[in-house]
């Protein structure tokens, strides 16, 4: 297996994540697509870590994961607050900042 195989897989999964964020209107599923993109980045880091004989890639995966966990906690708390106030989690119906 060459490095390119892993990078191609990661690119495809990242593209699926982008599609999810762009076409879905459900805030929870949009957040899930974000996790998908972070996972694609993790595959990249692990692949480079193996093929460049370095350990730092795997360490950075752990940092990415902790950021993902923090983001999920805060983001889902925000979604719960939003649902309590507006009774919706549709991204199109949330327009606090529209002038």
């Amino acid at each position, binding site marked *: *297996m060459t*490095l*390119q195989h*892993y*990078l*191609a*897989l990661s*690119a495809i999964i990242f*593209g*699926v*994540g*982008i*599609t*999810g964020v*762009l*076409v*879905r*209107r*459900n805030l*929870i*599923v949009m957040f*899930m*697509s974000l*996790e*998908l993109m972070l*996972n694609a980045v*993790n*595959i990249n880091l*692990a*692949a*480079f870590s*193996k093929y*460049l*004989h*370095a*350990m*730092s890639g*795997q360490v950075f*995966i*752990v*940092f990415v*994961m*902790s*950021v*993902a*966990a*923090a*983001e*999920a*906690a*805060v983001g*889902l*708390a*925000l*979604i*719960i*607050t939003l*649902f309590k106030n507006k009774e*919706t*989690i549709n991204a199109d119906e949330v327009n606090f900042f529209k002038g």
Partner: protein
Amino acid sequence: MEQVIFYILAFVAIVSSLFMITRNNPVHSALWMLLTFFAVAGIFVQLDAEFVAAIQVLVYAGAILVLYLFVVMLLNPKSHGFIKVPFRYAIGVVASVIIVFQVLMTLKSSEVIGKLGWVTPQLAQELGNVKMFGKELFTTYLVPFEIASILLLVAMIGAIVLAKKD
């Protein structure tokens, strides 16, 4: 054999992630995301990152996914599927396909070069993944590790502040 396993895992990861973004029910989306996480964990095992694969299953499939399922079942919102405007939908799909295509073309015509690190395959065989991982994490990356713990603490406090009744 290695190639066969890689292609199976890649197929599972891509197909389940596609299912994840196309299901209308968020619970189904979360379960397909679980399958994607397991496939990615298998990819990590193939890349000699056993410890990261274990963390992937524990943190992503165990903790983050349960958090998502909790919120989905707590809110039980009515289903908001896709963008209603077909034009915007098409633009979204086309844009991401173009991005992926460009990346794949770049990969095809490029070669990866870089300075090789200290983890030779022979040393990896000798020490094992977890030992080298711990060594790197607690020497070179000790300060970022501590900052990550502060980040998690702040996120926890922030989540409590946001979600509590006032």
